């Protein structure tokens, strides 16, 4: 009588086993199915969106900054050629071109569909279609400056947010830096000062500072290459957009004007480009020197230089004669 129900039937072990399995299934099965079903999907979703944000920060902003800035420089040069005038302010001119696609209110075909704002709007639409996220961009500032002679530096300050149902990102004042080589851009000095008749592209010389001689100078003039002399008073590439002929501390570049490409070939000027165009030695024949070397004179008969440039180009006084 005191044995109980399990002692009366031979289902003692079976009952215990069923209870044990029920407990095990309850413990393991539900949690397992939740993990398997949801975790990889949510994880993949968050990873994909995080990759998208990383892509924006690490690469996309830099790419659109480069492309828009490249076109903005072309657009500014084109504006200067069409209107035959220099820009009043490089920074605001660049900012207007790169963000609004216009220079001094004139819209530029070069910037069409290529402003920063257009590329950002494109990305916002793309992210909504592709990742089903809401992306908002605000450009705080875009700058152009020079710290090296042959490159312009670009800086974009941007705030953005990416919002999805699983996660969101909010980034303020994110800074993207980029650089552009100035080679192959037209020199604005030549464009405006010659009414667009003498256009020269920036093309860096491969002659080292201590290797200049008359032969190299002839090629330098012939091919319109540019040199950087650390002690020169030449303006930088960006200063040339605003007709600023002060010396650039870091980034002055200069070419030699080819007299054969001018309407008036024989002018009493130093043919170092910034001196030629700002006329600082105009008519001062006592400060100017003709090159007397016969082959040189045959090719560039009216070419003259000031004393400082004779030194820069390593031209000895024996090969020169004062212009008067």
């Amino acid at each position, binding site marked *: 009588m005191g044995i109980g129900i399990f002692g009366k039937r031979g289902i003692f*072990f*079976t009952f215990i086993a069923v209870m044990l*399995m029920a407990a095990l*299934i309850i413990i393991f099965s539900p949690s*397992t199915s939740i993990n398997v079903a949801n975790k990889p999907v949510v994880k993949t979703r968050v990873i994909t969106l995080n990759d998208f944000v990383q892509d924006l920060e690490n690469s996309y902003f830099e790419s659109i900054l480069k*492309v828009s800035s490249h076109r903005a420089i*072309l657009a500014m040069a084109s504006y200067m050629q069409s209107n035959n005038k220099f820009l009043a302010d490089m920074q605001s001119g660049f900012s207007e071109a790169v963000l609004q696609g216009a220079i001094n209110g004139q819209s530029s075909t070069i910037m069409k569909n*290529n402003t920063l704002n257009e590329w950002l709007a494109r990305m916002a639409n793309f992210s909504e*279609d592709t990742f089903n996220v809401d992306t908002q961009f605000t450009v705080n500032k875009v700058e152009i400056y020079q710290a090296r002679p042959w490159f312009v530096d670009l800086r974009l300050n941007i705030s953005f947010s990416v919002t999805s149902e699983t996660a969101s990102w909010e980034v303020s004042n994110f800074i993207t830096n980029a650089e552009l080589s100035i080679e192959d851009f037209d020199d604005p000095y030549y464009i405006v000062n010659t009414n667009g008749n003498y256009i020269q592209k920036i093309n860096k010389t491969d002659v080292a500072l201590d290797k200049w001689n008359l032969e190299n100078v002839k090629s330098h003039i012939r091919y319109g290459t540019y040199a950087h002399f650390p002690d020169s008073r030449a303006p930088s590439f960006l200063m040339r957009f605003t007709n600023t002929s002060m010396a650039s501390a870091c980034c002055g570049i200069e070419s030699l004007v080819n007299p054969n490409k001018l309407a008036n070939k024989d002018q009493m000027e130093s043919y170092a480009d910034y001196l030629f165009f700002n006329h600082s030695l105009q008519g001062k024949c006592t400060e100017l020197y003709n090159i007397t070397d016969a082959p040189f004179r045959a090719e560039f008969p009216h070419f003259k230089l000031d004393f400082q440039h004779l030194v820069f180009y390593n031209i000895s006084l024996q090969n020169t004669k004062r212009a008067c």
Partner: protein
Amino acid sequence: MYRKGYFFTLDAMMSLGILIIGSFLIFTSYASVPSRVQTAILAEDVMDFLSSTKIRDLNNPYAGIGGLLWQQGNITNADNTLLQQAGEFYYRNELGLAEKFIVNVTNELVPKPYKFEFWIDEYRIYPSSPSQEHVSSKNTTKILLPSKKLTYGILNKGMDLFGPYKSEVLVWE
């Protein structure tokens, strides 16, 4: 007290059977977990490889620097990632070249039991003409996980940008 011992023996054997079958069912359900995770990892690995490897870092006689595509002028920017290069082919509407490129650079990247597809926007770049087996395996698979990435790149010496496009790798077993 009144029962024979074989009742208890029979009961113990039935219990043991229940335990074995129950354990088998539980552990069988666990067996599907690794394959799902592996598929996701594989899709991400293929996408990471394509998006982080540059042409200049690729040692490949077809697509690397000095390779066939380089010599023919089809690849000109060594700083392009493989994904950007595929995107550039897509931008130039050279879809056949894009497919050959993807086949070549992903050779043996995806192990045999797995299959994969590479899409840009709504175009299946690889395989452009899938086999019947490929289609049926995709239709019948229980696990098909995508890895998406945006693709864009600079063209014409910095003058133009192509994209952004949606690139997608689909992997299944």
